[in-house]
């Protein structure tokens, strides 16, 4: 099985839409599993109409809590906490701010009377289901939680398991925005990174930072320019960057008619959109054909065709 991560650096460039389009295109010839690694704002399941959900709670770390009846008000916990998470209220009672607490346990370790205790938390949930293109996995982190990297790893694990059970040929992972912890977790042992760029100065700037990260992780990266017709200046900027960094620009997807609307029609199961002919989808199809070739999935599709 091959895995492809769709990422962007900058948010809102169209990662989810491109991932969903790839999944639709690939599912016509191959067995496909999808995963949404954006656990802070998980949208792939909306695009691919995931149903038959089964979700499990994803445990978070512990967080500190102070038992007011036991606390003597010595203030040692405030002094040792490195995260500024403990404050003294107006009535002299100490309390832990759960949004600032990093769960290290130092207050519980140091408290001379045992008033500070660590209590386990739920960070979010990890879900599996069935999308219009095959098995799907995604997660949702609770507001303010700090384990997005770990939840991404769990979603990835669920997706890889599902892909193996279903003998999938390709796993598509819709990546999180940014180049930090969640993205690094999402691209672990992946075969190819597809960067979705938009034709703006910020799109080019963030694409360059993503290219730096890919180089550092020795991960092959290809580029799809989305909403290409929104700005010729911006498109030129992205093309030049790709050229100067030696990044293959696989396709330029126009903004209109919006790809998202076409995909919605596909997801609803309405037959009759000749995928390659619909403007926008034809460019994504061009990118997908290149990726399919590069990953040797074309031969796999032939095999499946012969067998059937």
């Amino acid at each position: 099985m091959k895995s492809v991560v769709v990422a962007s650096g900058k948010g809102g460039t169209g990662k989810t839409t491109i991932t969903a389009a790839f999944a639709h295109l690939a599912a016509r010839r191959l067995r496909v599993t999808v995963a949404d690694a954006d656990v802070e704002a998980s949208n792939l399941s909306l695009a691919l109409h995931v149903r038959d959900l089964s979700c499990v709670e994803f445990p978070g770390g512990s967080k500190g809590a102070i038992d007011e009846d036991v606390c003597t008000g010595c203030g040692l916990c405030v002094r040792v906490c490195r995260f500024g998470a403990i404050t003294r209220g107006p009535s002299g009672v100490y309390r832990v701010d759960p949004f600032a607490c990093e769960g290290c346990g130092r207050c519980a370790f140091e408290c001379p009377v045992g008033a500070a205790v660590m209590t386990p938390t739920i960070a979010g949930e990890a879900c599996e289901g069935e999308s219009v293109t095959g098995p799907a996995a995604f997660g949702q982190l609770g507001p303010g939680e700090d384990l997005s990297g770990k939840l991404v790893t769990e979603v990835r694990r669920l997706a890889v398991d599902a892909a193996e059970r279903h003998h999938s040929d390709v796993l598509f992972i819709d990546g999180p925005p940014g180049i930090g912890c969640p993205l690094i977790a999402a691209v672990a042992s992946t075969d190819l990174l597809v960067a979705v760029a938009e034709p703006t100065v910020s799109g080019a700037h963030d694409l360059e930072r993503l290219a730096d990260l890919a180089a550092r992780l020795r991960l092959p990266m290809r580029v799809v320019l989305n909403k290409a017709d929104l700005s010729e200046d911006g498109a030129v900027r992205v093309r030049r960057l790709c050229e100067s960094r030696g990044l293959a620009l696989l396709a330029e997807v126009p903004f209109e008619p919006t790809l998202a609307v076409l995909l919605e029609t596909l997801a609803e199961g309405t037959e009759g959109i000749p995928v390659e002919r619909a403007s926008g989808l034809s460019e994504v199809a061009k990118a997908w054909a290149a990726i399919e070739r590069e990953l040797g999935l074309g031969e796999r599709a032939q095999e499946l065709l012969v067998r059937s």
Partner: protein
Amino acid sequence: MIHADQAGGGAPFVLAIASGKGGTGKTLVATNAAALAAATGLRVVLADCDVEAPNDHLFLRCARESASPVSVPVAEVDPSACSACGRCRDACAYGAVRILGASAIVFDELCKGCGLCVEVCPEHAVLEAPRRVGEVVSGPVEGHPGLSLVTGRLDVGQVKSPSIIRSVRAAAAALAGDLVVLDAPPGVACSAVAAVRGSDLLLLVTEPTVFGLHDLELSLRLGRDLDLPMAVVLNREGTGEADIEGLCRSWGVPIVARIPFDRRIAQVYARGDLVADALPELAQVLTELLELLPGISRREVMSL
């Protein structure tokens, strides 16, 4: 409009601009609103807290920049003093310490610098050393008197975004403006929290698509949990049918600005220019928004 004396005690009004979904227009709103506010004579600090993909500096260029590194304390084991007893490993809540051979070793990227391993080590073999994770760059913005920009930038390959965001906010607070505009990272996890907590108003930028609607609800939940007054900017109006109005109504959160989808906005933005300079309509929408700010914030605070 916000006045220095309104905030009380000279503390600036802190406006956080955020969204669950990426690419809804946070940077568009933040850069243009900050420039418009500065043009009215306010001292404004724009703080770019999207440290993984900081973009404000592409629209507002600094004349004289000063950069300072951001470091976090990371535990380090002196192998010659370590007896490999494993207490540090057992105490570490993050699984950042392992015993390899005759000594403990610390995995930098997992260590949060809490100092507990230093405390529990009977041999005093664990020390702490600063590790660079990024930088904060700040300076006055060229051509916009009264406007300063503070940018946080995560080093490529590093993971500790919240530490840099906290440094950005500290640097922005130190500049003593009348208004601090925080351009937050997308999402609802620890980075977004670090960027918006304690602000006077959480302004959520969204778009009328199913994705925008879904992610706006997540942001509203986060704002509620953080006890922040909230308002919504509906961007790219006309590009989708999702019922943002209905969601805002059910949450009792006002929509304070509407920006229609307009190719001209996309084109000016794509070049890295301020849209408010090129399109008076957008300048008007944002000016009206700025005038509403203290009112919304006070009303919501009182209703809590």
